């Protein structure tokens, strides 16, 4: 380590105009750093402005799509207005029903005025099994299952 530093010191000492070179090197280094930092800054700013432009375009597109949606909703509503529906229905051969043509039926079990709960919840709710499985129990189940399959295979191949 000390050898290295000596070599550098000697090299610097031996160089003529070493003072000016040092200054020049420092200035060049500073310029290089400034250029690098400037380039990074410009790159960052360019990225930011590009993203900003893209965001603005997307926001404008979203607003435009919302406006289009509103206009389409209005168009649908106009197309489904009562006079249009009546005209279309008449074109298709429909006409208004007369009171005598309406038939009312009894739907067994249907009660339009019943409450939301139609049967006691407790009676229809199944009791969930108690979860009491252990790791050893599960391993035992797997072993039993394998053993059963093995036996079944043996029986079927033997028979």
């Amino acid at each position, binding site marked *: 380590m000390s050898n290295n530093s000596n070599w550098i010191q000697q090299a610097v000492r031996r160089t003529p105009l070493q003072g000016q070179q040092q200054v020049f090197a420092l200035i060049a280094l500073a310029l290089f750093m400034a250029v690098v930092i400037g380039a990074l800054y410009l790159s960052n*700013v360019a990225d*930011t*402005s590009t*993203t*900003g*432009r893209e*965001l*603005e375009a997307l*926001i404008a597109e*979203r*607003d435009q799509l919302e*406006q289009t949606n*509103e*206009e389409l*909703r*209005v168009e649908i*509503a*106009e197309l*489904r*207005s*009562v*006079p249009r529906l009546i005209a279309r229905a008449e074109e298709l051969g429909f006409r*208004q*029903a*007369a*009171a005598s043509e*309406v038939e*009312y039926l*009894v*739907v*067994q079990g*249907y*009660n*339009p*005025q019943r409450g939301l709960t139609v049967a006691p919840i407790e009676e229809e709710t199944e009791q969930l099994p108690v979860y009491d499985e252990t790791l050893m129990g599960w391993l035992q189940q797997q072993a039993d299952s394998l053993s059963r399959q093995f036996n079944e295979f043996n029986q079927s191949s033997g028979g």
Partner: protein
Amino acid sequence: MASPPYNKRYKSTDQQESLRRRLPVLIALMVIATLYLLVRLMTFQYQPSFVMSYYNRLANYNYNESQRIAAARGIIYDREGQPLASNTFDYEIGISPSLIAEPQRVATQLSAALTDYGIREIDVLNAVRSGDPWILLAKPVEPRAAEQVRNLELLGVTISAQPRRLYPQGTLAAQLLGFVAGDDSDQLLRGYNGIEGYYRDELAGRVRDETTSRIPFDLPENRQVNDQGSDLVLTIERDIQFLVESELQLAVTENGATGGTIIVMNPRTGEILAMASNPSYDPNTFFNIEDPDLLRNPAVSDEYEPGSVMKVVTMAIALDLSAVTPEDTYVDNGIIEVGGIAIPNADRQARGVVGMEQIVVQSLNVGASTLALSVGPGNFYEKMNDFGIGRATGVDLEGEAAGTLYTPGDPNWSESNLATNSFGQGVATTPLQMITAVSAIANDGLIMQPHVVHQIVDGNRVYPSQPSTLERAISPESAHIVTDMMVQAVEQNLTDARVPGYAIAGKSGTAEIPTPLGYEAGASIASFIGFFPADDPQVIILVKIDRPVDYWGSIVAAPIFSRLAERLAILLEIPSDDIRRGLEAEGGTVNDIWSR
């Protein structure tokens, strides 16, 4: 080294001396100038507040753009979710001349897209050459034309959207909905009359001032804020409203009338299913109408003398106060004098001994006056107040009138008012007040709060309206007795109001039209209020026709009620009485429209 010549050395010394003398002066001047600049800088920094705010505004203007943004207005739906009032956009097309690179091409393409708006090539070229920073070319422009211009992708051509209220059903429920207009003070849209007026704040949403940075390096903010107005779901059913308006238009034409009103209401809940008046207007072009009175909703804003319909209220009051019983009788001489004024029956005929029911069935003025006299003014007007006569119902519509009912102690009241009020003269109500009062009879004596908004939807939150009772006007027993009398009135006298298969309870009214100089000669307001099925009322309907050629409510309004009720029974799936009872006997429960 050679020494400088004498004269040069002399000059140098002289210069040095001159410099030595001038330098302090120069330094002093520079110090003064610097101090002056410092003072100026200080004064710039510490200006009075109004100057500071001015410069701040200038600075903000350079860096930011501010604009006031109105939130999207809430949509109004009918009960089935069909939009009755919605939003759309008109567009504003302008150009920034400094950004136009190819004026001729822009002029050709733009004028072709905006031909319908009278824009010619020369107009565009003149605008480009004007040198102004921005020029408006066309406004308002329909969405399709704006889309065409947008697709041209012309640099320097601006398209900005201007929100506009649109009523996709046209004139349907116009007076009920109200309208929306711009306010000159802040260029924002505001609702007026009807629902748009009553729910102005709920529908408008929140207005915000938004600042956008002009600096390109600043990232734009996400401006999507949920501040739009609440949507309203009405109790109105579009199909019923359309049916009612069609029938009303037909009725006005057939009867040579000047106008009319029909209201359909659920007496059990106070929900208004339809409300229409004629003549009406198109709220999309409200600014084109010549008569501003058309903008009002006569169903809640216009008062009229209800006439004989009021007799059912008088009968209900007398029965409820036990002033009479259904079995009582009185002697009808065809005329009665009250407060010095002779009051005859409409046909000026005496009936002799008459039962209570016949007062309603034959619509006897003398009988109604006798009832009011037997009750007495104190009790009579107290009960009239319970029925909501003379006060606003509080319906959620802008512009409701309170009606006019003079009571004892009022300078305009005299003893004869007690008699005339009993059969609907000298008292003024709105159509909504009158149907609300009679709905108490249909609803076992309870008056429900009439309303038109079923739900308010604010984002993910839904606020349903609950039926609320305004008053118990009479007992259920009194209500049932009067209902039976109204059924008999239709069966025996108002036969044009009958609907095959249904028991209808109803009463007609024929009222004169008051003017400042007395009653208008030969003109009347013919009306009918009825509900059905009488034993389980689902719907109550008011029909009011203004100045028909035929004078009487029983002739003009009763048939309209009948036609309308028959169609409503189908639309609302109300089976006829026999079928309903048959279904109930089989174990069925007939659907109740108020459970929907």
